């Protein structure tokens, strides 16, 4: 993994504006690898019996950036990947829009899939961002009752 770690490029951002899939793709495709895996976490309308109107996110921004960078570096140590992009949105995220985009470019598909899965799983554990549900019935609720780890 040493070679790819040395040359791996990372792009991390936290922003209030809608996330641009095209920009992320362009960054990843420029690696000229063979596969790109992208995961987008999107605002889900229905959870159990409850209907979500929108979500809002708040971040400890400076720390979240650092934690996201650390995760990307860690993924680069574990998998042979070329580029990693992690972008989290803050503020209101309407139903069906993305709150987070994670992308990994690699020479082959295996590492791209595995690193992307690792990154979203870990992001949910260690990156200081919080989600607030705005339900259709007018109530709101901050998520996160306990630490996963």
């Amino acid at each position, binding site marked *: 993994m040493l070679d790819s770690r040395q040359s791996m490029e990372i792009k991390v951002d936290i922003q209030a504006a809608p996330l641009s899939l095209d920009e992320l793709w362009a960054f990843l495709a420029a690696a000229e690898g063979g596969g790109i895996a992208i995961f987008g976490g999107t605002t889900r309308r229905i959870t159990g019996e409850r209907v979500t109107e929108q979500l809002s996110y708040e*971040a400890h921004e400076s720390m979240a950036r650092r934690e996201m960078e650390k995760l990307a570096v860690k993924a680069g140590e574990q998998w042979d990947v070329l580029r990693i992009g992690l972008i989290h949105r803050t503020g209101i995220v309407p139903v069906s829009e993305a709150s987070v985009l994670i992308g990994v470019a690699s020479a082959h598909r295996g590492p791209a899939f595995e690193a992307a899965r690792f990154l979203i799983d870990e992001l949910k554990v260690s990156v200081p961002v919080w989600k607030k549900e705005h339900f259709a019935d007018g109530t709101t609720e901050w998520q996160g009752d306990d630490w996963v780890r």
Partner: protein
Amino acid sequence: MTVIVNVFARLREQLGTSAWTESVPEGTTSRQLVKVLSEREAAISELENVLRVAVNDEWVQKDRILEDGDEVALLTPVSGG
């Protein structure tokens, strides 16, 4: 010495503020700071068991000795993604 305390999300809403300056004795640990705040603020007291602390954008252990000017973040369980 003084430290800056940052709170976010539910704690920020409950306290009605996102940051304030706190005067603490030299040698105060992050655990002691949380204790003091939790005695003063019910919102912090209620969450004391799940709060984790970061100092200057890094996760720290509870017994981290604070230094003058540190930015101390009191963090509730994260729920991003």
